[in-house]
């Protein structure tokens, strides 16, 4: 047996940084089940693919599906989940040629992968089962055949939303005979995207009912604590959970590595990107296949360059490692995936693009440059390293972000606590009303009809008053000359995007990208530096009416960082307790000034004023006001620094407990809140209408305060640092004031 992973882990122990934790996940032997009654051709096909017997979870999932139950399979990466849905689907088509199935994957790349795997299995059965991918790349000539004859249609929610459902009369064969709907990577259907997808499924089910079919849903999910609840929220039917994996697993070591401290009083550690590079280079030189994850596209390029340089210093070829991220062409990606499977590449540097179930075989080591933002993502990424029998390892290198440092100091939150809940809110009014529109376009609503579980009579009345629907008899008919699905993007809450126009060559303006409206004040205010495709541009003009942003390419050594003036207005209080509350708010922001920050040194080299209209958003927020007594002991400056410090602490730790991205949440503090007439801290859902984060924060208020306290206590800096109370913390002594404020909360 090779001991290279063990000796590599010993090498990590020899580094100067801290090993914050080292957990061993024991090996697990395989457990098998039996095939339920299947077509002999299918059993034979599986055998010739090298699958003699199913794992216990596979046989369980297949039997329940064949018995007509909806299931969600939540087992680890590489446990053979696709077998669980491919078998019932192929079986049903072998049984009845007219039977149809619809596969939904969150991204196009995944559909391509699935197609290859399905083809292989179908070919072995020797029966003609037509399988097609239907997405934006599908040639119009192929579409007609697909609609009429495709047994299995593979697509994504966006295409279902704009390309299939609004044209359902062209898909009669599919909808009349739809037996199975497969929803893979279910955990990605959370937040605003999940809320949209839940409504797309409502529309799908309405159309199925119209054509007399009642499909069974087969869902697969990576680690979340509530796969059953998530599936049931998405499809609004009972779902059976299968989570006990029978697939074998080799032993796995998980290390949390914190780069060495170089300035204790300021809490500065060596750069995590250099540490991650060092670890990856060492592993690759030891012939350990390694995947390195990082958070941004820019970091992928940086890491790739550094790792190649490191390998070159050791006399190793740089092309042992490749980069992988969104923005690479599909062909390049396929090539990289293949080289990884075949072992031609020893290393890959990726964003979370490779987190999803793309098949790259199993690697020996995963290096995470920074905590990816949620526990589920972290487990997904670490799951990329894992072998059926041998030892594998994952090393997470903590960055200077608050949450990373919090986890390094308190690893039990990562290992001990259950993974977070995936949240979505299909009743989000903005999302719901828009999909009612789309659905009314597809089929008239009767006046008493529900939309999934939602009562929508008032929405229908509203749409009638807008002139979009016309009520005749007991039904609402679509009456507008528009195609509503095209105006709604599933990936964001608002479909309004600024178009970025490059006018470097005035005679030839070119569109280079888009920025969603809520991000505009930060990213593309006038004079902002905007980065795109490795080039820097300056914003010359922002046309707020026409939603256009004109930029010119410039050479700069600085970037810009806008400061927002935020206004929060509580519109409706839903619940209150112990100085906390949550409810509906108006969140308004406009940029006031921007700072110019030097790229290499992060020095502030100047500033400018920004004039932009206020951006408004209706959402939900959770807030709290510290007790009078706690603040009465502090002067005004201390109060302000304590609140700012506390807001920064919560900004850091709250996403961990609310299972959301940092960008899903806004945290603000106010010394004197105009509504409450007191100092207050707000945690606001950064999605119009909210997806439930405010309510969740209200429910978890004690946990959040405890975590904030723990975060500030465990931080090793003296007066405050970016990892606890914020970069400005030291200058305003926020660490001390925030600690004093936190100590006044009742901690149980």
């Amino acid at each position, binding site marked *: 047996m090779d001991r290279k992973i063990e000796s590599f882990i010993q090498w990590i122990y020899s580094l100067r940084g801290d090993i914050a934790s080292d957990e061993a996940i024991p090996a697990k032997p395989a457990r098998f089940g039996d095939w339920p009654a299947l077509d002999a051709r299918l059993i034979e096909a599986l055998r010739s693919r090298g699958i003699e017997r199913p794992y216990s979870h596979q046989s369980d999932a297949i039997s329940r599906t064949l018995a007509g139950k909806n299931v969600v399979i939540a087992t680890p990466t590489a446990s053979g989940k696709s077998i669980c849905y491919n078998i019932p689907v192929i079986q049903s088509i072998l049984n009845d040629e007219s039977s149809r199935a619809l596969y939904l994957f969150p991204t196009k790349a995944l559909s391509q992968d699935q197609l290859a795997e399905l083809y292989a299995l179908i070919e072995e059965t020797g029966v003609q089962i037509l399988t097609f991918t239907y997405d934006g790349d599908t040639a119009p000539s192929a579409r007609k055949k697909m609609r009429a004859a495709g047994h299995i249609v593979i697509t994504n929610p966006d295409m279902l939303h704009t390309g299939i459902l609004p044209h359902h009369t062209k898909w009669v064969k599919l909808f009349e005979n739809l037996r199975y709907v497969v929803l893979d990577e279910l955990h990605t259907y959370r937040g605003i995207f999940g809320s949209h997808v839940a409504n797309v499924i409502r529309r799908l089910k309405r159309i199925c009912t119209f054509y007399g079919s009642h499909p069974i849903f087969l869902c697969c999910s990576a680690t979340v604590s509530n796969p059953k609840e998530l599936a049931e929220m998405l499809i609004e039917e009972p779902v059976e959970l299968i989570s006990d994996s029978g697939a074998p697993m080799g032993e796995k070591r998980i290390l949390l590595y914190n780069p060495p401290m170089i300035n204790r009083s300021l809490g500065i550690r060596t750069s995590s990107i250099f540490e991650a590079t060092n670890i990856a280079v060492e592993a690759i030189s030891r012939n350990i296949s390694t995947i390195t994850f990082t958070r941004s596209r820019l970091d992928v390029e940086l890491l790739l360059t550094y790792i190649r340089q490191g390998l070159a210093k050791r006399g190793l070829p740089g092309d042992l490692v490749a980069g992988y991220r969104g923005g690479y062409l599909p062909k390049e990606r396929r090539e990289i995936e293949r080289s990884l499977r075949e072992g031609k590449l020893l290393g890959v540097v990726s964003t979370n693009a490779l987190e999803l179930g793309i098949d790259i075989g199993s690697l020996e080591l995963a290096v995470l440059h920074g905590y990816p933002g949620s526990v589920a993502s972290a487990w997904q990424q670490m799951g990329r390293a894992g072998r059926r029998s041998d030892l594998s390892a994952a090393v997470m290198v903590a960055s200077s972000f608050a949450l990373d440092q919090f986890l390094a100091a308190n690893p039990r939150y990562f290992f001990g606590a259950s993974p977070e809940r995936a949240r979505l809110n299909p009743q989000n009014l903005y999302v719901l009303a828009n999909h009612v529109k789309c659905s009314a376009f597809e089929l008239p609503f009767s006046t008493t009809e529900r939309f999934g579980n939602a009562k929508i009579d*008032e929405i229908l009345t509203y749409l*009638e*008053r*807008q002139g979009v629907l016309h*009520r*005749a008899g007991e039904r609402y008919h679509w009456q507008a000359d528009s195609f509503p699905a095209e105006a709604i993007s599933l990936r964001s809450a608002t479909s309004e995007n600024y178009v970025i126009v490059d006018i470097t060559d005035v005679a030839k303006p070119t569109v280079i990208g888009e920025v969603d409206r809520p991000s505009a004040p930060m990213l593309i205010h006038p004079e902002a530096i905007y980065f795109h495709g490795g080039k820097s541009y300056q914003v010359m003009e922002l046309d707020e009416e026409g939603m256009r942003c004109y930029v010119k390419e410039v050479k700069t050594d600085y970037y810009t960082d806008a400061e927002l003036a935020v206004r929060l207005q509580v519109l409706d209080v839903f619940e209150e307790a112990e100085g906390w509350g949550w409810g509906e708010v108006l969140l308004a922001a406009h940029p006031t000034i921007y700072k110019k920050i030097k790229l290499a040194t992060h020095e502030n080299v100047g500033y400018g004023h920004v004039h932009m209209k206020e951006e408004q958003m*209706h959402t939900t927020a959770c807030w709290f006001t510290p007790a009078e007594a706690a603040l009465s002991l502090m002067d005004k400056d201390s109060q302000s620094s304590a609140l700012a410090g506390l807001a920064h602490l919560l900004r850091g730790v709250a996403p961990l407990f609310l299972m959301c991205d940092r960008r899903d949440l806004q945290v603000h503090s106010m010394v004197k809140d105009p509504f409450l007439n007191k100092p207050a801290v707000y945690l606001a859902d950064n999605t119009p*209408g909210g997806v439930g984060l405010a309510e969740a924060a209200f429910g978890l208020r004690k946990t959040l305060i405890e975590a904030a306290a723990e975060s500030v206590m465990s931080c090793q800096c003296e007066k405050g640092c970016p990892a606890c109370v914020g970069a400005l913390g030291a200058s305003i002594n926020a660490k001390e004031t925030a600690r004093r404020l936190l100590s006044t909360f009742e901690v149980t």
Partner: protein
Amino acid sequence: MSDMLSKLEKVLGRAGEVKIRTAQVQPKGLPPGEWLDQGVYLCEHSVSLSSRHGKVGLQNIRGAIKTLAPWGAAEEATLLDVETTGLAGGTGTYAFMAGVGTIQGEILIVRQLFLTSPQYESSWLYHLRRVIPEEVGFVTYNGKRFDIPLLEGRFILNRLPFPERVRGHLDLLYLARSFWRGVFPSCSLGDVERYALGVERESQDIPGWLIPELYHAFLTDGDASRLSGVFYHNYMDIVSLAALKGKLASLLEGHGKPHEGLKAGDLWASKGSQEKAFALWRKAVEEMARADEPLKRLAYAHKSAGRYEEAASLFEELLQLEPRSIECLVELSKVYEHHLKDLDLALAYARRALQVLMELRPLVWNFKEERAALLHRVKRIEEKCARRERHKEALESS
């Protein structure tokens, strides 16, 4: 205002002032006609085939079937045009009026089937099926992409069968585009009607984009008088279809202007009727002020049919018109080199082509490649000539 409504307005904007009709109102102000069923209203018009539409007579519509058969014309010609609630496509758009024109004896009968509310659509479709002959040859304008797929979708939505025995579908837009793209401001039915048929619509006609709005207004108050323009518009569309069908057939038979004759030749060639195409192109050569286009077509057609003598003489004729056509010079060089076996002429044309290319140098974007190709051609012919000379000498010396 309800709590929910105020929230909706916050999220999606003001509800607007559209009046909601609660009680069923009997439509008023409809043009003369009869009720076929609740919500389904029929207006019928007869037009004599001996009358004229604009500058064009309708009598040619009969004989047109034979000429137009390669483009989908069939017996039981049924002119069809629908008015809809929009152009967006998808299942949210429905038709509320169908104009159906059929020929009975010497008369064109135009039936307009009007739907007074979407709730009666199923019954409206049922009657539409009865108005359309059982075996039908559709004649439409853009019907292949719009009218027919839309109706098919509506039949499916109402779980009714669409007419099954469709013998043919002649979409006049395709032919109109072939003849008049780039000639008329657009190939919309309105422009084609104005410029090809000389029809001027009366002031009551309304532009197509206004129709969905007018119908929606009618649905809210039941006042159909505002739709008189829509009835007129639809009626005119059907009569224009009839006239246009005859007009296009006569163009295909060669009774048009010279440039139309050229296009007619192209259309026949695309359907494999070389004889008809040749005749039309020859006629165009005689009639057109500049005959280069039809000459070129004829020359290539003869060449690909293996009639090289004719092809060469046509290319030479073409060269008279365009002495600096590199394309033409190269074609002549090819024909003489490979087929007519006159190497001296082939060489002369190739060298001339090279010379022209040098003169036109600044205008030729792929000058380098063109020059290399021509040099290669010249060299090859020169070598062939040299070989021939050697061969000749060998023959003579022996």
